[in-house]
């Protein structure tokens, strides 16, 4: 919060102070409760409608709190409904069934390794411990999962549940149906949070605009969009921030990492901007790891967003195949390394005049995955089918002799169960070679996927202040808007449990 002392006031100058006094949406600091007449009163107000928001909302409502969820988009769930629906749970019932030996320590070690050991271990531990509770919560809402556990890159053991419909919506939709039926919960869509209302230093409510309509044509919606009518909502017990990351905020992400081009594509929904995060920083919240932005290495430059190719690459090319430098025909990375390692390796090629790497696998690999995934990607034209390696090499301009040599070498590694070049765990790829025609090729590019950094919270999901080094009274946060938990980079299927667990924790503690 900008503290206006007398000296500060003169420094700001009359105009700046005038703007603060006028309560301009963009620049003003929080609003004083005494000057406010509330339109509606609640116990808990939650910003967002994804995993973290729904988990927090359901938990708080079950305690008897009167809850309001505000979502600026027309769509419920933000990124939570457009992801792969993968949820890692330590010591889960399915692990018991499958006889998988797991432990919280092992989970934390896997995550810390991917996170370059700058993770906040106390937060990570909460996810490890409470994962089963989160699983119970979503199953109670009606979420269904595949019978078999998945084993994702970077995890020592299989621990990942996959939503039965193959999408994150398989978890969100039942949660949303559940929360809509609760009599003490109100969900307002197309309602945009603008500012906090304070009583002393305590967060006691928000101002928001109803009938707000996000405009993806604007360069900076948070800043330019003035639509909607202003409302004041009281939050007697506090406010939970669950508004997600900022992968689509071109200004803010470039400030964090100037290497990211303005036109860089993201797998996120267009509403993933930094607005709420910045308001919390204004209140004094500690920023953590904000410049660590994660790219998904499995995307394709021939389409927008997550698209049809990503699932194909995750399931087939990277697991059962290879990724090669189109110029040299040689491999350049461990195709199953953590996301940051892969994205860095790929960007080295892409930044060389858009020399997109080519991901390759064969028919045996495709036969191992859900047929829908391959079919959709092929029909979309982002994955292409070739009768021979010669044809594939010619199509992408790869030197064919080198490519054949690379494939031969890789096949030998698979047979030997060891990859001395890049350390891909080829002993866990079911012995699949690149040998049986037809062969499949995709252009690869990493896309902005997850903003690792955000607000500092404690193990009770309270937001910590830089000024007092203690929790900001009445302010909680959960999910991608928080930072530190996963360090520099997170493993796949670790975001959903983060959102669900800390949403639940926030709902319990508020």
């Amino acid at each position, binding site marked *: 919060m900008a503290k206006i002392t007398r000296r500060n006031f003169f420094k700001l100058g009359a105009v700046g102070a005038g703007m603060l006094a006028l309560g301009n949406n963009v620049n003003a600091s929080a609003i004083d409760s005494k000057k406010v007449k509330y339109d509606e009163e609640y116990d808990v107000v939650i910003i967002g409608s994804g995993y973290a928001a729904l988990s927090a909302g359901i938990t708080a409502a079950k305690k008897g709190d009167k809850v309001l969820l505000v979502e600026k988009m027309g769509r*419920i769930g933000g990124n939570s409904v457009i992801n792969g629906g993968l949820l890692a749970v330590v010591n889960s019932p399915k692990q018991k069934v499958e006889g998988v030996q797991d432990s919280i320590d092992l989970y934390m070690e896997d995550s810390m390794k991917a996170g370059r050991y700058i993770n906040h271990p106390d937060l990570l531990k909460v996810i490890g411990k409470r994962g089963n509770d989160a699983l119970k919560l979503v199953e109670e809402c009606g979420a269904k999962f595949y019978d078999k556990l998945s084993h994702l890159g970077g995890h020592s053991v299989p621990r990942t549940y996959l939503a039965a419909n193959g999408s994150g919506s398989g978890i969100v939709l039942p949660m949303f149906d559940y929360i809509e039926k609760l009599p003490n919960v109100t969900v307002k869509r197309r309602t945009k949070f603008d500012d906090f209302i304070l009583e002393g230093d305590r967060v006691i409510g928000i101002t928001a605009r109803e009938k707000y309509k996000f405009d993806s044509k604007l360069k900076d919606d948070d800043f330019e969009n003035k639509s909607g009518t202003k409302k004041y909502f009281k939050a007697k017990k506090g406010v939970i921030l669950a508004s997600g990351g900022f992968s689509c905020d071109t200004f803010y992400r470039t400030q964090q990492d100037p290497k990211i081009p303005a036109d860089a594509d993201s*797998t996120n929904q267009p509403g993933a901007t930094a607005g709420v995060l910045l308001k919390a920083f204004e209140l004094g919240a500690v920023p953590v790891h904000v410049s660590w932005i994660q790219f998904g290495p499995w995307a394709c430059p021939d389409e927008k967003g997550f698209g049809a190719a990503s699932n194909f690459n995750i399931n087939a090319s990277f697991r059962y195949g290879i990724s090669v430098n189109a110029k040299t025909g040689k491999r350049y990375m461990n195709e199953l390394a953590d996301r940051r390692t892969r994205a860095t390796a790929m960007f080295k090629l892409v930044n060389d005049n858009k020399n997109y790497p080519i991901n390759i696998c064969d028919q045996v690999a495709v036969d191992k995955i859900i047929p829908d995934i391959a079919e959709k990607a092929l029909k979309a*034209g982002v994955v292409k089918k070739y009768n021979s390696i010669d044809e594939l090499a010619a199509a992408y301009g790869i030197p064919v002799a080198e490519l054949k040599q690379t494939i031969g070498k890789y096949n030998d590694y698979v047979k030997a169960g060891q990859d001395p070049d890049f350390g891909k765990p080829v002993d866990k790829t079911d012995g699949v070679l690149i040998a049986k025609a037809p062969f499949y090729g995709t252009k690869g590019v990493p896309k902005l996927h997850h903003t690792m950094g955000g607000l500092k919270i404690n193990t009770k999901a309270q937001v910590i202040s830089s000024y007092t080094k203690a929790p900001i009274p009445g302010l909680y946060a959960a999910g991608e808007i928080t930072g530190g938990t996963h360090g520099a980079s997170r493993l796949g299927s670790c975001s959903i449990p983060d959102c669900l667990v800390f949403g639940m924790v926030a709902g319990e503690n508020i």
Partner: protein
Amino acid sequence: MKKVLILIYFISLISLIYANSQKEESNALSSSIKITPEIKKKYPLKHSHNKLSLDCIFCHVGQGVNPENFEAVDEDKCLFCHKSKIYLAKRLEFMDTLKANPHNSVHDGPNLYCDECHREHKPSVNMCSECHLKEIKNNIWMKDTP
């Protein structure tokens, strides 16, 4: 004879004028609003709505009579005729085989606002193309949004 002819002429003229005025009146659902050709051009209707000769205040209920002051309507106005999203989804049930039924999709269920894709006075858009650009562009599993 001449007189009779003149009489017939007049009677038919009067009835013609009367018929015309009747027609004028019945053009719109309500006569309280003046729809000029300029307004019609500025706020064109979708083909199917145009065919039904719907006028502005069929949807813009209780927003006065000046089209320039009209605001976007809530979707209950759409659902007044189009029943419910589940009903609409049922009509496109064949799309469920790929979980791509736009009114009950794998991602959103029946929860999307109509105007997320359908626009009345502007060309419609397809929200799915935010992520599924290629599939939409090539009409692989969906046509242009009506």
